[in-house]
C-alpha cells in the first residue's frame, strides 16, 4: 500500500533545509487557490524558522524520508474546545508530497501516522484546513472519510 523504502518519522535537526523547502512548496501551491494565501516577500526565511519550530516539537509533524530525501510532510496543531466532549482537535494545516513521489500512498501514509500519534495522546478528532478552491485537497480528504465540518469566512479589514 505504501511506497517501499519510505520511513515516516519526526523531523530532526538535519532536516531543516529540506523541511523548509517542503513548507515553502506547500504554501506556494495553495497560493494558486486564494489571493489571501499570497506569499510574503521573505517566505523562504520564514519557512526556515517554521521548520525550526517543528523540529523543536511544536504541534505534530511527520516527514516521509526516502533514503535521506524528504519526500513529503504533514503538520497539525492542537485546537482546544474546553466545553466540548472532544475538547482537543488536531488540525492539519499543512500536507505536501513532492510531485515525483505522488500517487504512491505517501500522503495517506503521513496522514495515518499522524492519526496514530495524536490518538496515542488521547486526541480523538482530526480536522483539515485548506483553501475552499483547493479541489486537490478536497478530493484527498473526502476520499479518506473526512466530511465537511466548519465554514471559515474571510474579510479584509
Amino acid at each position, binding site marked *: 500500500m505504501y511506497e517501499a523504502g519510505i520511513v515516516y518519522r519526526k523531523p530532526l535537526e538535519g532536516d531543516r533545509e529540506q523541511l523548509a523547502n517542503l513548507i515553502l*512548496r506547500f504554501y*506556494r*501551491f495553495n497560493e*494558486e487557490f486564494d489571493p489571501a494565501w499570497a506569499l510574503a516577500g521573505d517566505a523562504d526565511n520564514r519557512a526556515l524558522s517554521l521548520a525550526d519550530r517543528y523540529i523543536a516539537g511544536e504541534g505534530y509533524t511527520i516527514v516521509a524520508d526516502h533514503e535521506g530525501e524528504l519526500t513529503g510532510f504533514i503538520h497539525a496543531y492542537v485546537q482546544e474546545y474546553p466545553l466540548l466532549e472532544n475538547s482537543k482537535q488536531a488540525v492539519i494545516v499543512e500536507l505536501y508530497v*513532492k*510531485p*515525483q513521489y*505522488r500517487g504512491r500512498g505517501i500522503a495517506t501514509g503521513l496522514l495515518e501516522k499522524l492519526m496514530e500519534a495524536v490518538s496515542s495522546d488521547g486526541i480523538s478528532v482530526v480536522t483539515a484546513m485548506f483553501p475552499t478552491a483547493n479541489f*486537490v485537497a478536497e478530493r484527498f480528504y473526502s476520499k479518506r472519510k473526512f466530511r465537511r465540518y466548519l465554514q471559515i469566512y474571510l474579510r479584509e479589514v
Partner: protein
Amino acid sequence: MAEKGEKVNWYELSVKLHRFYGGKIETIPKVPVRRIKDFAIWYTPGVAEPSRLISKDPDLSFELTSRWNTIAVVSDGTRVLGLGNIGPEGAYPVMEGKALIFKFLGGVDAVPLVHRARDPEKFLELLELIEPAFGGINLEDIESPKCFHILDEARKRLNIPVWHDDQQGTAAVTLAGLINAFKIVGKDIRKSRIVLFGAGAANIALYRLLKAYGVPPENIVVLDSKGVLHPDREDIDKLMISHPWKYQIAIETKGGGLRPGDPIWKALEGADALVAASRPGPGVIKKEWVAKMAKDAIVFAEANPVPEIWPWEAKEAGARIVATGRSDFPNQVNNSLVFPGVFRGVLDVRARTITDTMAIAAAEELARFAEERGIREDYILPTMEEWEVYPRVAAAVAVKAVEEGLARKTTTYNEELERARRIIGLTREKYETIWSKGLIPKPPVDYPENE
C-alpha cells in the same frame, strides 16, 4: 510585409484574389438532376424513406447521406497561425483554406465552422451538438492549454474521429521526419536523447507520440519559455492545476536528468535531436547551442515564417540533418502530408476515433514512402507534389483503425489504397474539368509561375 528578398507580396495578392473569388469553396451536387422530377428522389417525397431508415439506425447516416465524407474544420479563432487571438471571423479564411486542401488532397468535403464558444465546456457542447452532421472533426487554431482539454474530452465524448491538426498533424509529420533522420545517421531513436524546445500543441503531442513509439520518457527533455519541465521546478504545483499536460511531462521525463533551471545549452549537451516548435526566429536557437549537440545532430526548427535557426547556421554548427516548416528549404515538415490522408482513411472505414497509434501508423507510412524513394540528408520526408502519398497514408490509417476494432467497416490495405486513389483522383479530375472549361475565371492578378 513581404519578407526580405521575396519578390511576390503574397499578402497583397491573397487579399485581391480572396475578394475576386469571394472565398474559396462551394458545394456542388454529385447526383443526376436531369429534370425537376428528379427532386422526387433526392427530396420529397422519396427522401422520407432514407430519413425513416436512418431514424431507426443512425449509423445508416454514414451510408445514405454525405456524412461519411464530410467533416467540420472547427476553430474558435483563439490562436490563428502566428496571428494569435483574432476571433472566429478572422479565422474563417484559414479554415476555408484548410477545407480546400482537404478536398484537393484528400477528396474530403470539409466545412469551415468558426464559432464564438470561448469557454472549453461550451466548445465541447458545440461539438457534441453538431456530431450528427459530420463523419469527423478537425480542430484547428485553438489556444493552448485549452486545446489539450478539448481534444482529450472530445475524443471521449464523440463517436466520430476528432483530430487537432496543430497537435497530432504536426506531431505525426515530425515523427515521420525523425524516424528517417535517425535512420540516416544510423542511431536508434529509442536509445537517443531528444530535446523538445517549446511546449505548445505540437511538441506536447510529439512527446506523447514519441512515448507511444517507444522512446523512454527519461530520454526526452521538454523546455517551455521558463526552462526545463522538471519535477523540482518552482512552478510545478501550479502546472499541476493550470497545465496538467506539462506537469505530466515533467514527472515522466524527470527533467531528463537535468537540474531545474538548467539552461537550454545544458539540455542540448550531447543531445541527438532537437525539435524546436516555439516562436519565429532567427536567433531563437543559437549556433553555440547546436554546437554542443552530439555528432550527427538532427535539428528540426519548425517555427513559421522564420525558423528558430536558419538551416545553414544549424549546419555550420555541426547539425547533419536540418528540417524546417518552409517549402523553400529542403525537408519541409508539413502537416498537409498527414491530415488529408488520415481523414480519407478514417472516413472510408467509418472510424469512431483517431488514436495515437493511428497517428503513428500515418507517420511510419510517410517515413516508408520517402525511404522507398531513397532518403538523403536533404530528403527525409515526401513533398506535397508526390500525390501517391495521400492514398498511402489513408490506407495505413484505415487498416490500423480496423485492426484496433475502431472502424464501422472493414478493409484491407490494398482495398483502401485503391479506394483512396479513386476518390482523390476523381476529385482532381472533376476539378481539372471545371478549370479547363473556364468555369473558374482566370485570376486577374497572379505570381510568376517559376516562383
